[in-house]
């Protein structure tokens, strides 16, 4: 079955997942790489052209070898130097990784890049694209042979909830028995919705934001009935912030 994630279970029983890159985003990365190769070749042809003043024969030979080497070597060089990334992949935050989560080896990079020859048949990576589309791990033939996959590797930094939760008065905490019941009644999925809506609040259209927080606040108000003094005058967004604070911070 085709999935968008690659799940790897470690011997310790821990499962981690990697988001697989689809054929379209890989195609765009490939297009960027082709542009880079063309730029390199333009620069190279200018340099070789200057050499042509001394020996035209040598310049033609160098250009032929250079064109071949850049076409074949571009992917190998960058994926090896940048641990599975070319310029196109880096820009789109993609990365080639081992299908079992192991360290990417040089020979895997060579094999997957040499097999571009067959993936590009009959033209414009049709075979590779089709295989990628049909394969459960979005692998082209080169990836299958080399045991690699291309994943989406978004920039990940340490999570910071300080700015979201700290330093605000929480009226719900004045009623610890009700706060405990709230924690008990909320599922992880509901807690996640509340947290995500707060983390992404600035991305919403103002009207949609008001409607969203109103709906969510109503939903969570129904979970536990708090007395009026704890909720009166508290805006929907602040109420939701209080709920998230109660759910994700068990103790003060």
């Amino acid at each position, binding site marked *: 079955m085709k999935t968008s994630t690659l799940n*790897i279970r*470690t*011997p310790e029983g*821990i*499962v*981690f*997942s*990697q988001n697989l890159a689809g054929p379209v985003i890989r195609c765009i990365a490939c297009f960027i790489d082709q542009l880079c190769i063309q730029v390199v070749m333009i620069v190279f042809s200018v340099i070789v052209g200057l050499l042509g003043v001394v020996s*035209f*024969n*040598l310049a*033609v*030979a*160098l250009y*032929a*070898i250079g064109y*071949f080497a850049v076409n*074949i070597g571009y992917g190998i060089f960058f994926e090896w130097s940048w*641990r599975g990334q070319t310029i196109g992949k880096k820009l789109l935050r993609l990365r080639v990784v*081992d*299908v*079992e*989560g*192991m*360290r990417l*080896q*040089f*020979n*895997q990079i*060579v*094999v997957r890049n*040499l*097999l571009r*020859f*067959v993936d590009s048949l009959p033209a414009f990576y049709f075979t590779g694209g089709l295989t990628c589309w049909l394969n459960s791990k979005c692998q082209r*033939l080169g990836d*299958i*042979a*080399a*045991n690699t996959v291309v994943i989406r*590797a*978004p920039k*990940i*930094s*340490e*999570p910071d*909830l300080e700015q979201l939760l*700290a330093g605000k008065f929480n009226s719900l905490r004045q009623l610890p028995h009700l706060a405990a019941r709230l*924690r008990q009644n*909320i599922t*992880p*999925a509901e*807690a*996640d919705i509340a947290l*995500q809506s707060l*983390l992404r609040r600035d991305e919403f259209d103002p009207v949609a934001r008001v409607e969203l927080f109103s709906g969510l606040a109503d939903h969570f108000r129904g979970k536990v009935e708090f007395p009026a003094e704890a909720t009166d005058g508290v805006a929907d967004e602040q109420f939701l912030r209080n709920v998230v604070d109660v759910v*994700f*911070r*068990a*103790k003060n």
Partner: protein
Amino acid sequence: MIVDLQKFIANGRPHWSGLEKMLDRIEAEPNEQLSLGQAQKFHQLYERTAADLAKVTTFSSEPETRRYLESLVARAYGEIHETREKRRKIFPLQWFFHTWPQTFRRHIRAFYLSLAITIAGCIFGGAAIAFDPEAKPVLMPFSHLMQDPAKRVAEEESATGNRLAGHKTSFSAELMTHNTQVSIFTLALGMTWGIGTIIMLFYNGVILGAVAVDYIRAGETKFLLGWLMPHGVIEIPAILIAGQAGLLLAFALIGRGSRTPMRTRLRELSPDLTTLIIGAGLMLVWAGFIEAFLSQYHEPVIPYSAKIAFGFIELILLCFFLAKAGAVKK
């Protein structure tokens, strides 16, 4: 139960940051060996982070923290559980005199098969041109081979000037790149369960056999040997080695008689494929030089006997090298 995320992050952060720093260092300096203490610390941080990941996955659906921990565990997992040889400095001489010939010999049966397919193609091409000379344009659709062999030999031998003067280097480069592309293609077509590789090898054999019989029938055997041998004794084995690699890839895909999963078979084969194709590429560089700088010169510039002798010496050296280099004395 939902974890106290703030406390969870506060407690885990020093460990996660420590692991991240160690990973950055390991990735930046892959050749550096960790001391026992550092390795123990690394393992301890990995286990702690993996446990935190399990905790956050079970008790909270907070995706940002989970993604961060997953990325750390994924990076560390590859470093800790990898059993294959870690990348080291490259030793070209060691590779050339040991790894490459040893790899070739380890898969000699695939080479023999590659050779047999090419010979079958040669027999077919030779027989086709012998029985139906009119089929020449179909069998070898290359303009420079269309000419009558006797006429070509007469032209080549009467040429006074240096035909390739001013073009030798570029001609050589063209040959190298073209032949290397053909070799890589022959390898890559192994992914068609070997069908593409077999077709490539057979077709190469057909052309070779047709050209050979065409010249032999015209009584130009000596010219043929003098023309083809200096570069052909290297170039043809290089294509055969690429075919060997392609067939190995096909065997790994098909996995007949093997109980190991396809992924494992391909994983085990991958270094050998790289070695074989790089070896074939080196042979083609040499063949390209020889074809441009020696093969295209005929009598009276260079005696055929000298060119044939040169080809024989190359062939003997190549056979000796592939058969004996890097052999372990028992």
